[in-house]
């Protein structure tokens, strides 16, 4: 089995896929705590559906890299959802539900009507649940994912203290002159970028899991923001590596394998926490 893995890793495209997978997993875990605690999880979920619709548009436009279309559309949706959630007129969650289902419907419609591919349901399935194998990612996608992951990680580190401030206590941050609105916007944009990146790895329906599970697991084990963030990154990377390797060896779908690994780790962490506090 190890031999087989070694053989696979001889190919440069396999190595790139593994590196990109790990980077995406690392990115998506970083904002998990913020997302969970700011009650933004639903935005993540809503955005992933928007990204599905955007991807459908991108694929009928036949652009060389779908990310170039899905990224701006998802970022715009993120900004609109955040602003919508703050205004009291249209209830935030209702707006998100509306945008979610509308994007799903439009996306599926477009893919069916305009698709030139012989296997429409296969296309839809891989958009929803990720490529059946991460190895099918194209070279250009791999490069874009690589660059964007590095950008997300860098932005997170640079704004780490500010993200903590507005997550823990937005009113206090505002009262002391921190531009909380701008940082909320930054958080929303990073989430959008992460979702589009993660779609390549686990698909639009499963990306929320990639964001939230590692953070929830780490919160069971650790008690400070820094240690939770680091632990969540480690858990996410380990699960992604494990998931990718298993999916290559046993030809299981990459996305669901990674999410299953995340779930298993969460269960272990949950039990550890219960035993410890009991």
């Amino acid at each position: 089995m190890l031999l087989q893995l070694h053989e696979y890793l001889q190919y440069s495209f396999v190595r790139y896929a593994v590196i990109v997978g790990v980077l995406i997993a690392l990115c998506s875990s970083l904002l998990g705590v913020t997302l969970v605690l700011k009650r933004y999880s639903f935005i993540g979920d809503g955005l992933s559906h928007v990204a599905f619709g955007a991807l459908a548009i991108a694929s009928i436009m036949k652009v060389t890299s779908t990310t170039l279309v899905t990224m701006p559309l998802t970022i715009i949706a993120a900004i609109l959802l955040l602003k919508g959630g703050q205004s009291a007129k249209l209830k935030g969650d209702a707006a998100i539900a509306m945008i979610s289902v509308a994007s799903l419907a439009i996306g599926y419609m477009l893919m069916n009507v305009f698709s030139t591919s012989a296997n429409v349901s296969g296309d839809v399935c891989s958009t929803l649940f990720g490529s059946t194998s991460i190895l099918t990612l194209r070279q250009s996608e791999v490069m874009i994912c690589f660059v964007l992951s590095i950008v997300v990680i860098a932005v997170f580190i640079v704004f780490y203290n500010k993200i903590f401030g507005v997550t823990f206590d937005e009113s206090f941050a505002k009262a002391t002159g921190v531009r909380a609105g701008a940082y909320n916007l930054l958080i929303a944009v990073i989430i959008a970028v992460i979702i589009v990146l993660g779609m390549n790895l686990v698909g639009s329906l499963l990306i929320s899991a990639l964001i939230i599970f590692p953070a929830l697991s780490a919160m069971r084990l650790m008690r400070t923001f820094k240690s939770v963030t680091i632990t969540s990154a480690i858990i996410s990377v380990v699960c992604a590596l494990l998931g990718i390797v298993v999916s290559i060896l046993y030809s299981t779908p990459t996305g669901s394998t990674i999410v299953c690994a995340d779930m298993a780790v969460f269960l272990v962490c949950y039990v550890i926490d219960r035993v410890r506090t009991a």
Partner: protein
Amino acid sequence: MAFIKCIDLSVGYEGKAVAEGLNFEVNEGDYLCIVGENGAGKSTLMKTMLHLTKIIAGDIEYGDGLKPYEIGYLPQQTITQQDFPASVKEIVMSGNLSKLGLRPFYGKAERDEAKRNMKRMDIYDLRNKSFKNLSGGQKQRVLLARALCASTKLLVLDEPVSGLDPKVTADFYQLIKKLNAEGMTVIMVSHDIHEGLRDATHILHVTGKQLYFGEASKYTDSEAYKILTSVELTKGDK
């Protein structure tokens, strides 16, 4: 020139005023207690002074060396914070956030300031403990240390003793009194009029409009005080 001067101020939300015609000032070294019934606009007034809510009408002037955002704020605790993974040190440190400006990380000056305020609030030994596992009184001291990092001049406290037991409440008031004696200007929103009266130098009574503003010692003779206490008495009867 006062630290904060409110001129014909109206406060409220979504364009609707909940309290109007507020005229008062807070000077360096004052201990102002804002009292009034629930929904009387005292919390909204406080949020307006902190720039969290827009002014409906009138004006607030900040002066005497106090910058508009140089305020140490002790908010009421939110539900989010009860489950938040953060150490005491991380939270106190975040009081320095506005000093960072464009810098991404805290420097020695901020770390020293956080350490000094943790020692001052007697929570330095708890610095690596998780916030959510602390007692109510300890949590308030952590948030107070954070507020002290944000300002050396003015503290604004929003119902700081709600949910604390009598012993801890007394200790907390003692702590505020001590800070005030050391030169810290204090504005406290409270529905606990009796405690407020004991330590405060000034009282502002708000119920839709300004019923009283002046020295605390003269407040008990005012009409406003009689209204407030009679309301409390009728509540007590039920």
